[in-house]
């Protein structure tokens, strides 16, 4: 029957099956980091991501258990799920959608566009639906119990989650497809970058900002009005399933669900026409349209470039590499650009209250949204380092091993580059904001110095745990999400706990401030020395991944 359906869709069933199975094998193996017959010690990024999703589901499940308005909790659940799926596609799976590798391998095989599309879509959907399953497990159990034992509710919540995931995946795939179809290859690089930034703003911004428009005082009693506008939200279309299963759904719930199903069917049809091998061909043409390098070496970059840190040796090599990769490596560029909106949003949230809590006012006990600024300062270098490590160009890293370069020097060069060119400007921006609110240059200078040293400390600790050479590891599916999501969970908590305490102790008096600054300076110096030895020892054990 499936074969007949595929035939009707003009899809070759046998080819679809072979392509899907191969893609799955490739993804699982690449995610697990298995090379040849040697299994690397890295845990599967995909498993970590799934675990994170399942863990997040516990909070959603709690919400569904506490609040008895199933439409309200359903909206929250499906809204959160949408953000997670969209973020994962943005960070991780845009490469599945726009993989140029497929073109190189498959373009001369007798595979039709329709077959390629369906195999590609199946591949993306398998991931997003696996993540949905992980996230929806606990909530579906909670829904089965929240209004008395009703397994239908659990089933309805699962179905609603799958439909939402499908809708989000299709929308994202179609947006990428539209860009690749309508934008000329010469402009593709720039447009994709802007698109990635815009989507990051929408996804993370929605996640952070939307709850602010719906302040909830008492979550257990909170409810959503069944007004017309609410049925315009895509999540309502599928959350209505919960109302239907609980026996409280009206005709609007049925109508919204039907509309939601029709929209998925419409998007599927649209996607099947838009996404094809032609799609990969466009991306492949990026190479032909890549801006040509200027003739001769560039030597006139000024002090910022020619300062002592990056003037020669490993530091210079790393600086040249990172800046060139940023210009020409689409994946690296996109992953860096997707970090900026997130940190800017944190920044915005931190100052959106109109006031800024003076960290030198030691009577303050609650840093509230200001804390987000500090989290951003701590997170930014780590997220960037993760984007720097994994690359499609990892096979070119043989040069580190074949040249007399000092590998520890390369790791340190990468750290210095990130601190100097990424964290530096970010701290300058913060300094301007602090100067506006604090109006005390000494306070601003001290505060920025403390933040810079704390960020440097956390970055050093991360590098000591896992020293990595720039662009030296293959991209493994799921690894980016897990690497970004774990710091998302751990670092903010650590930052919110430790930094206010540090501020309170350090800014109590001139003596304690001097002592804290000296302590941090000494701590950074000592840790740098220790890190130097440790990174040196660990770097010797690094092996070429190609």
């Amino acid at each position: 029957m499936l074969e007949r359906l595929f035939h009707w869709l003009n899809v070759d069933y046998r080819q679809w099956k072979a392509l899907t199975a191969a893609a799955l094998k490739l993804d699982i193996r690449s995610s697990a980091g298995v090379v040849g017959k040697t299994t690397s010690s890295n845990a599967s990024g995909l498993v970590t991501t799934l675990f994170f999703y399942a863990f997040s589901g516990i909070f959603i499940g709690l919400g569904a258990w506490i609040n008895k308005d199933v439409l309200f909790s359903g909206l929250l659940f499906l809204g959160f799920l949408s953000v997670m799926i969209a973020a994962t596609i943005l960070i991780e799976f845009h490469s599945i959608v726009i993989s140029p590798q497929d073109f190189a391998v498959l373009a001369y095989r007798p595979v039709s566009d329709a077959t390629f599309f369906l195999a590609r879509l199946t591949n993306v959907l398998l991931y997003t639906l696996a993540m949905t399953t992980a996230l929806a497990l606990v909530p579906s159990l909670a829904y089965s119990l929240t209004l008395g034992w009703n397994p239908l509710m659990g089933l309805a919540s699962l179905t609603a989650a799958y439909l939402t995931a499908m809708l989000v995946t299709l929308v994202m795939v179609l947006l990428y497809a539209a860009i690749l179809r309508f934008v000329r290859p010469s402009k593709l690089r720039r447009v994709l970058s802007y698109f990635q930034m815009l989507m990051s703003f929408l996804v993370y911004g929605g996640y952070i900002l939307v709850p602010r428009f719906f302040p909830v005082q008492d979550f257990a009693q909170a409810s959503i009005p069944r007004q017309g506008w609410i049925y315009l939200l895509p999540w309502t279309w599928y959350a209505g399933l919960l109302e239907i299963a609980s026996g409280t759904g009206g005709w609007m719930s049925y109508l919204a669900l039907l509309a939601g199903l029709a929209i998925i069917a419409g998007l599927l049809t649209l996607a099947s026409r838009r996404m094809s091998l032609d799609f990969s061909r466009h991306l492949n043409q990026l190479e032909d349209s890549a801006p040509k390098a200027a003739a001769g070496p560039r030597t006139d970059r000024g002090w910022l470039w020619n300062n002592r840190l990056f003037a020669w040796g490993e530091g210079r090599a790393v600086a040249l590499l990172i800046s060139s990769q940023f210009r020409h490596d689409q994946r690296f560029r996109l992953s860096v650009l997707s970090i900026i909106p997130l940190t800017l949003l944190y920044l915005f949230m931190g100052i959106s209250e109109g006031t800024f809590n003076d960290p030198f006012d030691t009577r303050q006990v609650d840093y509230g949204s200001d804390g987000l600024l500090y989290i951003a300062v701590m997170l930014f270098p780590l997220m960037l380092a993760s984007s720097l490590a994994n690359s499609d160009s990892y096979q070119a890293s043989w040069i580190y091993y074949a040249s007399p370069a000092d590998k520890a020097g390369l790791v340190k060069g990468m750290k210095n580059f990130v601190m100097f060119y990424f964290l530096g400007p970010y701290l300058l921006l913060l300094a301007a904001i602090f100067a506006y609110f604090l109006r005390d240059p000494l306070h601003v200078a001290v505060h920025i110095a403390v933040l810079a040293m704390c960020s440097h400390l956390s970055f050093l600790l991360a590098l000591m745990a896992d020293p990595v050479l720039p662009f030296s590891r293959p991209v493994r599916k799921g690894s980016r999400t897990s690497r970004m999501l774990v710091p998302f969970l751990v670092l903010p908590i650590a930052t919110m706990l430790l930094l206010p305490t540090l501020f309170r102790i350090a800014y109590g008096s001139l003596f304690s401030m001097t002592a804290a600054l000296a302590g941090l300076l000494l701590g950074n110096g000592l840790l740098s020395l220790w890190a130097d030895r440790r990174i040196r020892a660990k770097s010797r054990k690094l092996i070429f991944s190609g």
Partner: protein
Amino acid sequence: MIETQQLTRRFGDKVALRDLDLKVEPGEILGFLGPNGAGKTTTVKILTGLLEPSSGTARVAGFDVVEQPLEVKKRIGYVPESGALYENLTGGEYLELVGQLHHLDPSGLQRRIDELLGLFGLRGERDQRMTGYSKGMKQKVLIASALLNKPEVLFLDEPLNGIDANAAMIVKELLKKLAGQGKTIFFSSHVLEVVERMCTRIVIINEGRRLVDGTPAEITRSAGAESLEEAFGRLTGSRDIGETASDFLKALEQV
């Protein structure tokens, strides 16, 4: 067979291929020669459906490459210059995937994979992922995948890159036998000795234009040279080799 008429491909302002007329009959091994950037790979990419021509027509195995690309792809085998493979698959799995894409009978396919891998001495590595393969081993898998569907037309872009002498001899012998069976073979390479020994006919192109077309002996004679290598140098306007090498040395000494 392969037939092109006024085949042209532009990349922006640059013309990579200009009005190429070509006809390769069944049973022929055509050597396609030219210096770097001459348009060889562009030609192969158009003929295998990887790239659309800007103008002109091309027919492979009786089908138009633009109008009926799937029909063409069913009937060709291709060994690309920069052999892209799904390296996280094993050699056996990759060939199985290719066989499935060509709708080969599953039981016959396994036998054929075994035969081809055995031919290249890779039977023992059949279940190893290709990430652990050497460059030559990957190249052998690519050649095997190009032969898997018993193609009518075979396109080979630098097929002997990285493979050992024994395997290279096998490939050369195999290609001759395939031509003997009436297959059309399009052999693009820089290695003049191999082309000279293997190909029944040679076409040399430069800057997207066809310069000469004939047997190795005819080309050597018409260029007034003593060897194909010398003829190639004269036709493509390369500088005096000794002088170029001296310039290189001077440049290295300045570093």
